[in-house]
């Protein structure tokens, strides 16, 4: 059912005007032997009703569990007005705002988004967003290398407490450009950066330092000390932050004596559904002096020829469609619709609402930690300073426990053993504002039962 409006008469009229006998004649510049054979491997098309039946059955298979997984994607309540507004056809089916006069809706919205992200991170400038938090971090690393005037180094120092998949994505994107990434080691007791190890990196020249707040384990890092240390050693400091947490925690612009230079992170907590990992959006904010090294679209406010306020794409001389091989990045889009949803979300919540969501998530997390104290086979590994995630050590294989909990309809968390073998059998658990106390009790029961069943199986 290909959504083609042409009737047989329309087709005939068009062929007559063009002056050919058949549609196939329009492909006569393609060598005959290259023409494709019928695509037998693809099924026949379905109408909408039949399609909905198939897709509903598939969606049903993944539905219905109580989710305590975080690890970079977080379940928050999404107000109904967020997507009913963002899904308006004028937002959903517009393209990149090249024709500014006919795109003022999208352009003003992104300007408002940029303003909100600057407020949240405490920095001066935001771009219009990048693909996701991890690829955004890769772009921030490239940006810092271009922007650091004190250092010609192509080496960057990443904290071992930054999301392991973010570190992998950064490596896989920047390594082709001859950039070296070194890792600041983890203190496996406190689940944050090992400060004792800092001195061993002081003799080397690094362009940038990447730290996360809260870090991958949900633990708070001493970002003030780390930011000062990095900047005192000639590095630009990049903070990877959860925007929701920034309502409660000091934002990157206020870290240390001078503030971090660049903030980057995953925008998903701001009104985007988990949806298997995307589409989300990556935000990047920076100090004013770095703006010309910023990757991606930026919207500016200006006036039209009658002096009326309007919005337009600006600083385009950084971008691929102008600079080609000399552009700051090959990126040509942002995550427009995701940003639209996040902007509506932030407007509905305001700072007060955002703070309440963060506090409720934090409070529920502490409540679950207290409920897990003293359970046989469970050790709380996190220190007391966590935001809305924490680590527990189990006395059995984590992936088995996760499966046994899933059989009870509870998704227990993220298995850390693949990425941090040195921690032992550890599970990363997340609690947000959507969980009630009885949900937490279900988690505790499911975990206890899984540990007992695991013991029986052994």
């Amino acid at each position, binding site marked *: 059912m*290909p*959504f*083609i409006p*042409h009737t047989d008469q329309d087709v005939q009229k068009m062929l007559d005007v*063009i*002056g050919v006998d058949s549609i196939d004649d329009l492909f006569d510049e393609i060598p005959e032997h290259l023409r494709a054979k019928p*695509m037998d491997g*693809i099924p*026949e*098309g*379905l109408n*909408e009703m039949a399609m909905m039946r198939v*897709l509903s*059955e*598939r969606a*049903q298979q*993944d539905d219905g569990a109580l*989710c305590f997984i975080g690890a970079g*994607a977080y379940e928050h309540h999404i*107000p109904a007005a967020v997507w009913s*507004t963002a899904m308006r056809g*004028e937002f*959903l*089916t*517009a393209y990149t*705002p090249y024709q500014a*006069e*006919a795109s003022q*809706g*999208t352009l003003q919205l992104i300007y408002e988004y940029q303003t909100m992200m600057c407020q949240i991170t405490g920095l*001066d400038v*935001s771009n219009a967003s990048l*693909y996701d938090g991890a690829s955004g971090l890769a772009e921030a690393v490239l940006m810092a290398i271009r922007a650091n005037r004190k250092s010609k180094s192509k080496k960057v120092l990443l904290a071992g407490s930054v999301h392991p998949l973010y570190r992998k994505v950064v*490596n896989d*994107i920047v390594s082709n450009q001859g950039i070296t990434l070194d890792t600041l080691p983890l203190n496996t007791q406190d689940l944050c950066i090992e400060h004792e190890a800092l001195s061993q990196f002081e003799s080397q020249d690094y362009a940038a330092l990447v730290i996360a707040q809260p870090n991958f384990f949900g633990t708070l890092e001493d970002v003030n000390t780390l930011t000062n240390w990095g900047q005192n050693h000639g590095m630009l400091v990049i903070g990877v932050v959860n925007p929701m947490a920034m309502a409660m925690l*000091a*934002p990157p612009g206020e870290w240390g004596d001078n503030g971090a230079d660049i903030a980057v992170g995953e925008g998903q907590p701001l009104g985007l559904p988990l949806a*298997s*990992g995307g589409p989300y959006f990556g935000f990047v904010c920076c100090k004013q002096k770095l703006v010309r090294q910023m990757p991606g679209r930026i919207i500016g406010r200006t*006036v*039209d*020829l009658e002096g009326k306020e309007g919005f*337009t794409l600006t*600083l385009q001389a950084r971008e*691929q469609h102008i600079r080609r*091989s000399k552009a700051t*990045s*090959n990126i040509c889009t942002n*995550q427009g619709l*995701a940003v639209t949803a996040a902007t509506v979300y932030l*407007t509905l919540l*305001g700072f*007060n*609402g*955002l703070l309440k969501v963060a506090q*409720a998530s*934090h409070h529920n997390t502490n409540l679950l930690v207290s409920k897990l104290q003293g359970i046989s086979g469970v050790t709380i590994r996190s220190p007391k*300073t966590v935001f809305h995630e924490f680590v527990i050590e189990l006395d059995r294989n984590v992936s088995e426990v996760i499966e046994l909990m899933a*059989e009870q309809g509870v*998704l227990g968390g993220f298995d850390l053993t693949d990425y941090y073998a040195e921690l032992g059998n550890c599970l990363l658990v997340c609690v947000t504002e959507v969980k009630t106390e009885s949900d937490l009790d279900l988690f505790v029961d499911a975990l206890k039962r899984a540990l007992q069943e695991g013991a029986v199986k052994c």
Partner: protein
Amino acid sequence: MLIFENGSKGRNATSQIPQNVSEDTNLPSEFLRTSIADLPEVSELQTVRHFTNLSRKNFSIDTQFYPLGSCTMKYNPRGAQQAASLPGFLSRHPFAPESYSQGYLSCVYDLQQTLKEVTGMAGVSLSPMAGAQGEFAGVAMIKAYHDGRKDFERTEIIVPEAAHGTNPATAVMCGYKVKEVPVRADGDVDLEALKAAVGPQTAGIMMTNPSTCGVFERQIEEIAKTVHDAGGLLYYDGANLNAILGKVRPGDMGFDVLHMNLHKTFATPHGGGGPGSGPVAVGERLLPYLPTPMADCKKSESGTVSYHWVDEKELPETIGRLSAFMGNAGIVLRAYIYAVLLGRDGLLRVGENSTLSANYMAKLMSDAGFKLAYEDRRATHEFIVTMSKQAKELDVTAMDFAKRLLDYGYHAPTTYFPLLVPECLLIEPTETESIDEIEGFVKAMIAIQKEAETSPEKLKGAPFTQPVRRLDDVKAARELDVAYQKVME
């Protein structure tokens, strides 16, 4: 009015604020925020009204004909939006165990299979999040292939001068130098120049076919042979795949690797500039390097099929990960649903009818006196009109025509791309626009041409009917204002 100018201290959308929240925290005060983020303070109605009114200042496919060349602005089926928004899909965590992932995994797997069939390639990964990231993945695989053969001398990527700007920018991001080759007056690549350009330093060539000139590259087999003989690989930029869907496959033309734009060919919404999705497909020799994650399936002895993720453990030579999770997972899902709706015959008819519509529109424009840039060639799914005569004789530019079209209720075509055709408009009607819309657009162009001859100020001052007139881009860049600063009272 900006949303920030719209609120009152202490106002909020009360229904959205969590209740009975404890403000107690065990966190040390040095970690806590003391400043206030100056976010809007408005009611739920004010929020909805503000953004609804903003939306009305946009042109969109839902409201206007949007013939933006090379962007494939076709109808985005609502069925795909609705099915992708089923609760089971929206609530699935990217790290959900496979026992709670079979529904989504089966869609990923089936789309991989469909795209292999459409492109004639051996393997597909859906993880790149946009066309530009697909390009990056593709060129990174070319590099991994040469490196895997210890062939480190290949330092150059060849790009025809008509190429999209992302092609050279991508090559540089992968550590390559860019060598441009010229395009002949008939829109095809200058084969002799290409032969002179290739050598032991050639890693590969990046091409679009149909090209950005809106014509099919007729020498594609000689180009493939030339580059392959020199030891390089062929990269296919799938920007224009809509034109050839079901008619000719990149794999059969000799390409080794390609990306597709699901937000073009597979009708996922453009969303005001994203999210898109740029899957990559490869031939046999690049299979080990595909980016992860991908979906695969196993059949048990009892015949039940189960799906699982393929990661770097199973594919050790992969170029790796481009996103923390599974790319733009929800866009992949919408594209899959589009493919389910169309099926094999529907997909074939897309290529046929997008080409039919573009050729009809080009003929009407040509008959009306407009100059086609490649008038001796068949149009593909798009075509180029050049306004250089109007610029010279009437002092009105392609941009003036574009802006005046907005007053007639049509979104402008792509302007000034490709760069090698002066004063050009790149026009792509797509298969979902009716013959009436196509004819209406041509009539508007004829009317604007008359205005250009009699009252050119109507073009030069255009648009007159939009929320703003032409904007001062120089001021925007010089007096940079990219975030609202509240004026203190």
